[in-house]
């Protein structure tokens, strides 16, 4: 740059202009206030409505803790609590060790086809929870293929619930444990190996303690998932009452809102507990890894690998086959007496007035939620993380954004019922509309998307905003030209996550749908209630395949985005 002396005059004459016309500070302020307002509306107020409803009688008079007292002294209700605790504990005890071994095989052994086994274990994530219940009914139910295996015991009750919940919660536990096992430091293992430590001792003294936070986290997540799940006890629970079905019966059946609220608050306890445990665990787990930790690379070990392969094969089969059988069953004329195939079960209109329209509604809800929700979540995370103004408001928004993680869908749904049904609420007209389903679903899945967005935003150079300010480029331009394009993979992740969950969720929306807005996942419940199990299984299968297709499309799109649209990532 030394020998060329360009016309400096021109440089001087160039750009002395335009103080930014709209003050960034004002725009940022308006946006952050708007974000807080939206989060208060869709998260805080419904929760507040739930809390206050639990302290009122059916006429809306304040009665203190009377509802809780009458809950504890009504045997039928109180037994549900015990039932829920028993079922959730049993499922946790079964799932976590199995998932741990499965994750261990995927991370710490040299078994072949890890990708296939991983995908197999993930299948339940893509289906509404009650499909696992339906699937078990096909196999072990009154008309099940393997009914004799039950040796006279009934599937409809705790046995069925525990089995189905095990299927349904398995991938969630496995995901956490795979991550935890990926984190452990390989150097410890190698040092132990070098000292000739026995395999069992290594497992006990290094592997298990290394993954202990993952195990704790998995325990709480599984327990919470099971105790708050509505779909499975609904289809397979028979006369066995649990908290989630009680809440539904109190609110939808008996219109006893205060008692529904009490149940909701009880359901909130384990979830809130799980939330805080998870936060502590995340912090500890991060601190455990030194920056120089090296990932463990397993070496082949024939005996261990064969044993683990056998185990993983059995589990994967146990997960996939019920879903496959349910899918098959959806084409069967009259299970199990006439196994010839037919498409008539997919003529949903025969058993469910809205028929295929419910599937359309679901797609519409999932799409709207994905688009609007992702935009809200990502822009919200950007305002919280990158705009350095109004720290108090941003901290408040951050708190609200983390709340939904601690709120089970059923509880959020109850909150929405109480809030939007309240006579004084001018937004009451939203009740039963697609709008309320969309905002409820956004709120329901807000936190995971928010964390994904924050993580990817934190990876950006924190000086992008400073540079833009120095160049007098407003932050929204930088958001559009730099931040959002760089974060596109994370944005897609969020959108797909929200989409898939919007398709499969039942628990919150079952309180909120209206005559025109019945969703496929709710139609499944109703078809099952009406005894049309094949149609229910068919609709659930369609949802599952839609979700899987979206996920696969995402994987392809991700490659495209990384490869072509983000060629700046390559040297």
């Amino acid at each position: 740059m030394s020998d060329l002396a360009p016309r400096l005059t021109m440089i001087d004459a160039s750009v002395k202009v335009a103080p930014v016309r709209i003050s960034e500070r004002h725009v940022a302020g308006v946006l952050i206030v708007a974000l807080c307002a939206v989060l208060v509306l869709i998260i805080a107020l419904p929760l507040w409505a739930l809390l206050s409803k639990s302290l009122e009688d059916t006429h809306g008079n304040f009665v203190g803790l009377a509802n809780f007292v009458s809950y504890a002294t009504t045997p039928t209700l109180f037994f549900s609590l015990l039932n829920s605790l028993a079922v959730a504990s049993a499922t946790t005890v079964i799932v976590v060790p199995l998932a741990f071994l499965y994750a261990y095989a995927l991370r710490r052994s040299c078994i072949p086809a890890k990708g296939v086994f991983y995908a197999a274990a993930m299948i339940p994530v893509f289906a509404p929870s009650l499909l696992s219940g339906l699937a078990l009914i096909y196999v072990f139910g009154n008309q099940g293929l393997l009914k004799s295996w039950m040796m006279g015991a009934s599937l409809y009750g705790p046995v069925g619930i525990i089995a189905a919940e095990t299927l349904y919660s398995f991938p969630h536990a496995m995901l956490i444990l795979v991550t935890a096992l990926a984190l452990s430091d390989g150097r410890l293992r190698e040092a132990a190996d070098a000292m000739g430590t026995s395999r069992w001792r290594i497992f006990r003294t290094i592997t298990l303690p290394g993954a202990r936070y993952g195990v704790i986290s998995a325990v709480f997540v599984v327990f919470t998932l099971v105790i708050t799940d509505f779909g499975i006890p609904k289809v397979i629970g028979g006369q066995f009452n649990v908290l989630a079905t009680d809440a539904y019966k109190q609110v939808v059946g008996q219109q006893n809102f205060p008692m529904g609220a009490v149940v909701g608050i009880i359901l909130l306890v384990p979830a809130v507990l799980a939330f805080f445990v998870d936060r502590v665990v995340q912090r500890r787990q991060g601190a455990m890894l030194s920056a120089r930790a090296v990932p463990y690379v397993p070496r082949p070990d024939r005996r261990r690998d064969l044993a683990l392969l056998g185990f993983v094969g059995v589990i994967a089969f146990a997960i996939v086959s019920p879903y496959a059988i349910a899918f098959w069953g959806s084409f069967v004329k009259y299970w199990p007496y006439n196994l010839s195939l037919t498409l008539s079960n997919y003529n949903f209109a025969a058993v469910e007035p809205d028929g295929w329209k419910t599937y359309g509604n679901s797609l519409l809800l999932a799409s709207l939620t994905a688009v609007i929700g992702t935009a809200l979540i990502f822009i919200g995370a950007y305002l919280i993380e990158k705009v350095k103004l109004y720290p108090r408001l941003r901290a408040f928004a951050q708190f609200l954004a983390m709340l939904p993680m601690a709120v089970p869908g059923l509880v959020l749904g109850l909150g929405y019922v109480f809030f939007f049904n309240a006579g004084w609420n001018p937004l009451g007209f939203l009740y039963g509309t697609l709008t309320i389903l969309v905002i409820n679903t956004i709120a329901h899945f807000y936190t995971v998307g928010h964390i994904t967005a924050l993580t990817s935003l934190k990876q950006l150079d924190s000086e992008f905003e400073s540079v833009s300010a120095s160049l007098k480029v407003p932050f929204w331009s930088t958001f559009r030209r730099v931040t959002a394009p760089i974060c596109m993979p994370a944005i897609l992740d969020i959108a797909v996550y929200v989409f898939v969950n919007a398709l499969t969720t039942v628990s919150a929306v079952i309180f909120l749908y209206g005559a025109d807005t019945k969703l496929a996942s709710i139609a499944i419940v109703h078809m099952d209630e009406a005894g049309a199990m094949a149609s229910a299984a068919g609709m659930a299968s369609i949802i599952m395949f839609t979700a899987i297709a979206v996920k696969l499309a995402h994987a392809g799109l991700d490659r495209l985005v990384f490869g072509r649209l983000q060629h700046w990532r390559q040297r």
Partner: protein
Amino acid sequence: MSTTAPPFLSIRDLSKNYGAFRALHDIDLDIRRGEFVCFLGPSGCGKTTLLRAIAGLDQQDGGTILMGGRDVSRASPSERDFGIVFQSYALFPNLTVTDNIGYGLVNRRRSSAEIARRVEELLTLVGLPEQGKKYPIQLSGGQQQRVALARALATSPELLLLDEPLSALDAKVRVRLRDEMRSLQQRLGVTTIMVTHDQEEALAMADRIVVMRDGGVEQVGTPEEIYRRPATPFVADFVGHMTFMDAIVTGPGRVRVDELDLLVANATPFAVGTPVRLAMRPEEVRTRSIGEDTPNRFEARIGDLAFLGSYCRAHLEPTSSRSTRIAADFSTNAMRDLGITAGQVCTVAFPPEALHVFAGGAR
């Protein structure tokens, strides 16, 4: 630079706290138009904090900042006129070099042809013609630094702020780029503030150096002043190498170190008998053309010798004293001419004007 013109940047009584921690305090500073100023100091002394306060990126808690006569103490960054280069460069990875440089030009209602011409001009200016289509990841560290510089200069700011712009580069590139940056700055005449903790860089580039310590300004002066007349032992020690000796004032312009009676040129305000600290740079120790009348001459044994490339560092032990050790640098030339070897005794002298007297004998 006439002394009557008002300073371009004027900082008064600036302070900033992080909780109970005083990151900046009592900062008073004037910077003239067109000047190249370096903030120099050890890690954590508040250089970046001061730079960011000037930019408005992290606002100060107290004090005022005048920029071009305008009070910008509470102005947001976009209401101030500056370009900035960060240590990380903060280039936008998804934009080409051209788009990075033109980033600040786009929203100023200028035609795309005009912008393209300006970007071309800047690329030439920083010595990167024909690199405009690349993405930042495809450039070397030095090239990225130039792109960041070009982007900061694109809008022709009145003030250029640089936060350790060279520290991510290897030594060779660093030396070349610092010369280029200096000459570019002089041609453009843009007022420039650079943060660095590399004293060599500061001495080589700056018109004036601001030495900082623990959130305060220790000394402001030209590189020459800072080096020749350090105001405090801290500055003396931080900039260049300095040997410290405990001494006692024995008269006006006279001090004693152990058995050595020494003349000092700079008048000392200390009373007779006051313990002081005497300091001298190793390269000021004279070994040649010492005559009978040369002041401060004495016999010394050459202790260990360390070869450091173009010169040797020796430790001198005056024959009259056993405890004092004084570092001295001998050029390779002098070594050869005088045949200096370890263990040998030779005559050396401390030039009186090279001796600095600071308060406080006891450390």
